[in-house]
């Protein structure tokens, strides 16, 4: 019976129409925000319908800036986890320092938009508008990934993880120390732009792009070769896969996307310094959310991030003091008890995936034969 419930959950989550509906709703949500603004500007309500709707919108405030911000943060987490999953989940290189690309992206955006406190900062790389600056952030992150990856990606297993953790910590210190560029302890302030719906839509579009991109990568031979590297790197190399090139490529792609998000986040936050840009917890978020959802699956990071974000918001917003302790304990619990993640639970010997097939299956005695794929 439990099996059937899991199958049903899976079928509902992955039903094309359900997914489409969620996306449409997400796109429509800010319209309530705009509708409220519009209502507030009205002098008098002309019809009873308008009256009731507007009163509801003004009194209940279903979609506020805070709600939009919350969703934006969730989207950012999902994107980060999905990016991390490209190297950590597919390629098997568990990166404990991925936040370094996020931080670099943030700093690149800030500097390119002209927040440098240093007089000698080249004018060419200053006062860019946001979009090229964000692109620049991605490129900076990708170049850094190329440089650092060509050393660290030669390391295997835990050595790689620790070397990347070291990269993060060392980069943070170097950025903090070079205070005429990074602002040191003072940090950098970006041009203030408080348009929450804009950031909401930007992150939503990026989310849709990244998740589909990851799904597409997984479906290609390139994606399969990454999985081969995870499973047996020496074997993959000997069967003709250029493991070094593929590893570095995916690392740079992942860093590029992470840098983009970092750039957007910095602009949204309007301020950053070394500590918040290179926050170690951000990497752990990526790892934890991916693990919870299912390492190396496309949907895993999405599900894991959503659940964990909700847990944070609902469960331990009330225990602010203990929240870090809870997070640590949760990490241990996830790793020890659901190492395969939620996708692993849903997928295990799944007798069918489509909603149709499941509903049909309930009226049949024997379950249908279904090829298992990974």
């Amino acid at each position, binding site marked *: 019976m439990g099996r059937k419930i899991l199958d049903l959950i899976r079928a509902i989550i992955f039903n094309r129409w359900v997914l489409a509906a969620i996306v449409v709703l997400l796109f429509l949500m800010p319209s309530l925000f705009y509708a409220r603004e519009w209502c507030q500007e009205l002098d008098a309500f002309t019809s009873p319908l308008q009256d009731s709707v507007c009163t509801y919108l003004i009194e209940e405030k279903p979609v506020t800036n805070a709600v939009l911000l919350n969703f934006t943060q969730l989207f950012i987490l999902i994107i980060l986890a999905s990016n991390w999953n490209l190297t950590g989940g597919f390629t098997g290189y568990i990166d404990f320092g991925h936040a370094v690309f996020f931080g670099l992206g943030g700093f690149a955006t800030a500097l390119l938009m002209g927040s440098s406190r240093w007089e000698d900062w080249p004018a060419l790389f200053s006062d860019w508008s946001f979009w090229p600056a964000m692109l620049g952030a991605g490129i900076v992150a990708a170049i850094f990934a190329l440089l650092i990856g060509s050393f660290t990606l030669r390391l295997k297993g835990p050595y790689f993880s620790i070397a990347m953790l070291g990269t993060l910590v060392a980069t943070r210190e170097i950025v903090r120390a070079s205070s005429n560029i990074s602002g040191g302890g003072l940090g950098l302030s970006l041009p203030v732009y408080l348009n929450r719906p804009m950031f909401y839509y930007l992150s939503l579009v990026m989310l849709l792009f990244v998740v589909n991109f990851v799904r597409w990568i997984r479906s290609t031979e390139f994606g399969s070769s990454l*999985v081969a590297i995870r*499973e*047996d790197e020496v074997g993959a190399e*000997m*069967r*003709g*896969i*250029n493991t070094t090139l593929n590893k570095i490529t995916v690392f740079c792609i992942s860093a590029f996307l992470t840098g983009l998000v970092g750039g957007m986040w910095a602009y949204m936050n309007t301020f950053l310094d070394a500590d918040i840009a290179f926050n170690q917890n951000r990497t752990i978020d990526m790892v934890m959310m991916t693990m919870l959802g299912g390492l190396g699956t496309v949907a895993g990071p999405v599900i894991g991030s959503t659940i964990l974000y909700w847990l944070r918001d609902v469960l331990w917003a009330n225990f602010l003091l203990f929240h870090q302790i809870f997070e640590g304990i949760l990490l241990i619990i996830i790793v020890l008890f659901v190492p395969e993640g939620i996708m692993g639970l849903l997928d295990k010997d799944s007798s069918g995936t489509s909603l149709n097939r499941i509903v049909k299956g309930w009226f049949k005695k024997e379950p249908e034969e279904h090829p298992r794929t*990974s």
Partner: protein
Amino acid sequence: MTTEMTSNQKDQSPLLEGRGVSKYFGGLAALHNVDFAIYPGEIMGLIGPNGSGKTTLFDCLSRVQQINTGEIHFKGQEISKKKPFQVAHMGLARTFQVFRVYRKLTVLENMLLSRQWRNESIFRQLRPSHPDTDQRARELLEFLTLDHLTYEQAGNLSGGQQRLLEIGMALMPDPELILLDEAASGVNPVLINTIKDRILHLSNEQGKTFLLIEHNMEFIGDLCSRVFVLNFGEKLAEGTPEDVMTNEDVIEAYFGS
């Protein structure tokens, strides 16, 4: 010692040639000053007692191991400085004595991942696997009697089945030289005969070249035109199976009279 060569081999240049190949693990000479040559279309056997360095030779050929001295030429090119994947692209495939299948992937995915990559740019890899590749993988699985396991996780296969999968994965890229490391051990006799037929067919019809490590002398005798014997990392003898099996040194090395 006489090395018999058929007339067409004499005037051909070797497909694979090693000169003075040595490999040391610390003080242990796994290979010491070994010379060998394999000609196109030939099926050559590589035998020797346990620990005589046969697998190490394969490792050196497929570039898992770095040789200490000597040179190895494959299709006229020096390969002892190349990367493993480059050698694979040149048309050298091998199986592993200790299985190296991708345990968590399905049998089909294992096969698809062993397809011919041949110097493809990353952009050419950004597409789903080609229907022809899929077709070929399924055909090979059928031949190896693994087709009923197409969607099974490779790690769940029995030892013999994994051995067969290894052979399939080596044949998948359509290589010119195939190194089989104890490919027949643990495989049932009926299937061994099928594999023999397949090897002969590939060799005769398509001119593929094989180098086989085997402890099963019957297998060697049925297939190989020439046999190469290693003992303690050094070449002990070389010749037709009959010659080698009656060679006193070889008998002593195996049975230690």
